[in-house]
């Protein structure tokens, strides 16, 4: 089982908060890898919210190719964090040349582009870099987006975090998502490590999506750029989220209706039953199956958690105004926010979407049986 931990805090926190929470939860889990997603960054990045940040792992040759490529496009490096890899390698972790986190200045004229167009271009560059890297095996690219950093590596999360010295001021962020396992169902590959990211949307999952193959086929056939990869069955959750919000223009409340639609009786009793029935039929190929707890982050910095139809995976949300955490287990939550009102901890059930908005004031719980804000 994967360990999941996410935190959203008014005051920026170190990634080590998430690492420690995951370490507390390590009993009963393997420590085969770590995936880290940082957003609403502080420190130097706080001053450059608009600048796209490229995160990935590069070889010496890869970095040279990257520089050439980015320069040709007209991107200028604005700021970078150099994670120096210690000389003594970590057992079980491949030797890397460079973990790159680099903020860029847009090429001339790009500032006037619409947000949509800008997003598409950033996505295209990420896909292009990924393709280049896969060919020469010299680059692995996780994200290229403003105010977002991603780090992924194979190995025990705590050891990797210490090895890379992630407890540094530049990496403090207000939204952190962390996952503690390499994909074990398919080939070991850093692209199979959660969280997954596309155009501002990120998710990570604890569980296995047994409907993966038909969903993958469906997403691949949508003709949406970026719906590729799928080294992990969990990547489809991110893309379904993107599809629901971006392509279909629905709200986060509709996500649950797409991945785990209501059954007949509940649909008939639902105030938006007619619409939801259509949605269920038209998005039938996106219905997930199997045990899954999904934690995700939206472009507006909201964090959310949903469960599968049978609620077969653990998941808890708790905290206090200004700081909330989503965790696979309560012990993780205890480690991160010990001074919260534990009686208010909430474990989302099979109908719930739990959401902490960008104001970080409260946990909103939306049941699938509640009225749905319809698309306008």
């Amino acid at each position, binding site marked *: 089982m994967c360990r999941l931990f996410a935190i959203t805090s008014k005051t920026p926190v170190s990634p080590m908060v998430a690492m420690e929470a995951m370490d507390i939860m390590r009993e009963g889990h393997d420590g085969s890898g770590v995936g880290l997603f940082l957003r609403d960054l502080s420190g130097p990045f706080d001053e450059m919210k608009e600048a796209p940040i490229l995160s990935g792992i590069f070889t010496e040759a890869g970095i040279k190719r990257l520089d050439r490529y980015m320069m040709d496009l007209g991107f200028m490096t604005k700021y970078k964090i150099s994670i120096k890899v210690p000389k003594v390698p970590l057992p079980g972790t491949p030797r890397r040349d460079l973990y790159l986190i680099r903020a860029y200045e847009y090429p001339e004229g790009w500032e006037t582009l619409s947000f949509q167009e800008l997003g598409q271009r950033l996505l295209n560059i990420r896909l292009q870099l990924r393709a280049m890297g896969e060919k020469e095996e010299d680059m692995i690219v996780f994200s290229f987006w403003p105010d977002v950093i991603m780090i992924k590596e194979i190995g025990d999360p705590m050891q990797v975090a210490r090895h890379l010295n992630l407890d540094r001021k530049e990496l403090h962020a207000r939204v952190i998502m962390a996952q503690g396992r390499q994909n074990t169902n398919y080939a070991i590959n850093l692209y199979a490590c959660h969280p997954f990211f596309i155009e501002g949307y990120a998710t990570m999952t604890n569980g296995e999506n047994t409907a993966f193959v038909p969903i993958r086929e469906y997403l691949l056939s949508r003709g949406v750029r970026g719906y590729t990869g799928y080294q992990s069955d969990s990547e489809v959750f991110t893309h379904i989220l993107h599809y629901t919000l971006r392509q279909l223009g*629905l709200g986060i409340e509709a996500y649950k209706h797409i991945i785990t639609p209501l059954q007949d009786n509940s649909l008939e009793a639902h105030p938006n039953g007619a619409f939801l029935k259509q*949605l269920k039929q038209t998005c039938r190929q996106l219905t997930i199956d199997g045990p899954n707890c999904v934690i995700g982050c939206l472009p507006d910095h909201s964090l959310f958690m949903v469960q599968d139809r049978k609620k077969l995976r653990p998941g808890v949300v708790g905290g206090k105004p200004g700081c909330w955490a989503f965790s696979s287990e309560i012990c993780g939550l205890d480690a991160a926010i010990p001074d919260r009102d534990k009686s208010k901890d909430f474990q989302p059930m099979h109908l719930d979407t739990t959401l902490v908005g960008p104001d970080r004031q409260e946990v909103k719980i939306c049941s699938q049986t509640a009225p749905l804000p319809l698309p306008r």
Partner: protein
Amino acid sequence: MLPNRPITPSTLSVKDLLWQIAWSKDKCTLCGRCTSVCPVSAIELGVFRKRTLNTDLASAVPPSNVYQVYHGIRQKTDPAYACVGCAMCNLVCPNDAIIPMRTDEADKLRFHINRGGSPRNRGGRRNVPGGLLDQIKFIRISMLTDPALDAGRHEFELRTLLGRVLPPEENIKHFKEHGWIPPVREIYPLVIGSMSFGALSPNMWEGLQLGVAYLNEELGLPVRMCTGEGGCPPRLLRSRFLKYTILQIASGYFGWDEIIHALPEMKEDPCAIEIKYGQGAKPGDGGLLMWHKVNKLIAAIRGVPTGVSLPSPPTHQTQYSIEESVAKMIQSMSMAWGFRVPVYPKISGTSTAMAVLNNLTRNPYAAGLAIDGEDGGTGAAYNVSMDHMGHPIATNIRDAYLNLAKLGKQNEIPLFAGGGVGKNGNLAANAAALIMLGASGVQIGKYVMQAAAGCLGSESDRCNICNIGQCPKGITSQDPRLYRRLDVDMVAERVVDMFLSFDTELKKIVAPLGRSTALPIGMADALGISDYHAAERLSIKYVV
């Protein structure tokens, strides 16, 4: 026959026949039930003369002989009366004195069932036992990463959609703007395929309808049944049960006068309209109801005179191009019900199925495609069509699904697979395999006759006389003396038993695969087969 008597080319011995009657003189009571029940008069009372020799070695009595007569059963060897192996004689025999046995070699009868130059006609399926569907295994068993579900206790949703499903973007747009959204029915994925009123006896048909109604209204299982080409009893057309019925229109348009006239009086819309362009048992050939079965009732419903054979043309008269006439026909049928009823074509399994499918993808009114594979059954067809024509269903369905997936339309046009599903009794396994290959649902006919009414037919060429109205179980007969053997309520009960057990078996297949919230359409990663070439062809795993 005396050895010196002349013989004809078609003079056969019992040994030359496919089915040979084994009869025990010791057990026979001479009650005559077997000869009277035989649907093809293959046996008759035999008077046998037998010589007994008395040679007493111990005494001085000279040897003598005596001629005695005994009575028993004689099997006819005239090809017109050849035993069909139905074993009704065995069923009615009080002493188990009689039973048909299958010959140990290829029979010689087959060379002679064409008297008068008329090739063999029969009912049933392709006479080839076995099949690929049974070889497919479900290999992706949920183990520790996603523990298997409980087929008995967890919640399952095993429904499918019949109807054109718009892509999500369009659907939402049409919903917002109150535009037309094509009708979609949420139905059970196992559909009773098209067996016409006429092909089936009134009792069989009523039993099926009763069973279907019970499944829907009492058990909440949305099972649907297709009428086949032969119309629909007027009372059903005007009842609320019509919503459980798929009306079929085929090239003979039999029964459609009645249906069209009933339109203003319909309380409910039918579930769907199936336009039959072909069927798996006799691809490229029209429907056939032989004169034996066209009695007054059938003639009235179909709007024809009694006692004439009713061969439907192989194609619809108006059809000269798929682009124009199929689209037009789908549109006309949609229009008849105010675009509230899904209309879909059914074709024979064929290598040209993709062309049909691609055309349907461009027709916004096409509600699906049913493909009937080579193992489909029928009430009457030429033997040659049944045994040699057609395309296996597995590759046809797989190709069609992958083709739709390539176009991104795998959710828009549901595919229904038929033809030999459950041929060897493995209904749920065959259905699940087809669904995971890409079918949205499956259609069954022969299996229902076997499971719900005790049909005796088999792919070893047993019985298979559905065409001549002599069905010994009364399933496909129009003779009241025969169909009264079939109890309507008991057929209904068996239909219910069959669907309930299928439902449990389907759950027993999908639960270990970790599937329960939706029918695993296209979940080909769960499938494996030990035939390398079949695995390659179907894009599933090769496992040994």
